[in-house]
């Protein structure tokens, strides 16, 4: 096995954190609510980063499935910030054009941010509709969606912020490529 140190260095630099304090106690994996849906558990992700396994880590499901609940870092004896690591790895996977196994999650993030870019706020009905159209899972949530409409929870009229120029500036100046 060849260790690609450049990967570990890049992750450290971008996240501003070191991940070599981990002594593989598995606390993070044990407390992670979504570990069953991960291909590598959080301990393994930390370890694979240290071993420089760029491709395996960036193409993993685990980095997308993480819900950022912070259970892991709360119970880590070494305060290894796993959710921050996951955020960093997701950003790297997108930038490096890796084929993401959890396409719907990425699509959801994109649709969400697109709404924010246009209106400055989330207009939930629009978000749901766009996401559904884009992901072709139109029927999956139809029943729940109808219930929502019936209850008139979602706003029908999208509400935009007045200072939309600020939002545009954020996207233009703030490297809002995502």
């Amino acid at each position: 096995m060849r260790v690609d140190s450049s990967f570990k260095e890049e992750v450290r630099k971008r996240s501003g954190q070191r991940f070599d304090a981990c002594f593989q106690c598995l606390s993070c994996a044990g407390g992670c609510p979504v570990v069953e849906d991960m291909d590598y558990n959080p301990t393994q992700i930390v370890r694979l980063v240290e071993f420089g396994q760029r491709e395996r880590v960036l193409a993993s499901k685990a980095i997308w499935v993480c819900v950022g609940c912070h259970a892991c870092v709360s119970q880590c004896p070494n305060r290894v910030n796993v959710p921050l690591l996951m955020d960093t790895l997701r950003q790297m996977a997108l930038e490096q054009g890796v084929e993401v196994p959890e396409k719907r999650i990425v699509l959801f993030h994109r649709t969400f941010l697109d709404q924010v870019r246009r209106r400055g706020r989330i207009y939930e009905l629009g978000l749901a509709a766009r996401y559904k159209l884009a992901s072709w899972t139109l029927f999956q949530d139809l029943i729940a969606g109808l219930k929502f409409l019936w209850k008139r929870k979602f706003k029908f009229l999208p509400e935009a912020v007045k200072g939309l120029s600020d939002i545009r500036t954020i996207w233009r100046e703030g490297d809002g490529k995502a």
Partner: protein
Amino acid sequence: MEKLDGAIRYYPGCSLGSSAREMGDSFQELARMLGLEISPLEDWSCCGSSPAHSTNPNLATLLAARNLLLAQEQGVKDLMVMCPSCFVRLKQAEREILTSMEKAQELERVFHRKYRGGVRLRFFLEILEQIGLERVKEIMRNPFHGLKVALYYGCLLSRPDWITGFDVAPYERFIEDLVRIAGADPVRWPYSKHCCGASLAVTKPGTSDRLVDRIRHYALEAKAQCIVVFCSLCQMNLELRGKASSPLPVLYITELLALAAGSPNARKWLSKHLIDPLPLLREQMSLARSG
């Protein structure tokens, strides 16, 4: 303790006016009955939520920071934040700007405005505690009759504050007392701080189903008649998801309090629930009559 005076400014977040109408409306009612003057931060915008921090940290900071700048310009000293997820995002942005020269300069470059750090971000439970049990007690005209509730804090509220900026632990006793004042009885159960998987509710519903079923199972086992939550995302997910367990009504803390205060407008928001809480509430009311 500092006195609360004048108007309270709050950051509602995107869901308070739509999918979390129950929370928004009951919060307004509660504030009205407590005689508080509340108004939203003018022209607030989305904090960026998970999609921003998952994909682009710069965007996450700038989106959240715009609200800090607005609060500063509007002379807001304490900004009350209603949603735990928004709270963590705003707090994170604040920390970055105040501790990293690079981030502070980036903010100034983009907005041509400086953030000086004078706005205190406060989760709404902090404000409620400041208002105090005594004051809340005064308005409890229609208390419940031993309604058994499972207090569900969810993930972000129950993490150490060095990570999120707010830890519910020192507030737990206060919340239990608050619930008792409303005539409800908090049950002991082991799942009040486990994540419900709300962020995967749309993209990986099977995962959210599993997490919700687990939470509900333990709430039912503890004989809770409803779950009481503090987060709009938890509320929606706990009502929407879960397949294997029987449904259980999910009320926001603000609904519980506004109901116990005898809010005349409760029907308006109660009808928005996906799991109808009315049968349970009627049962409580008939208890009230017979008791």
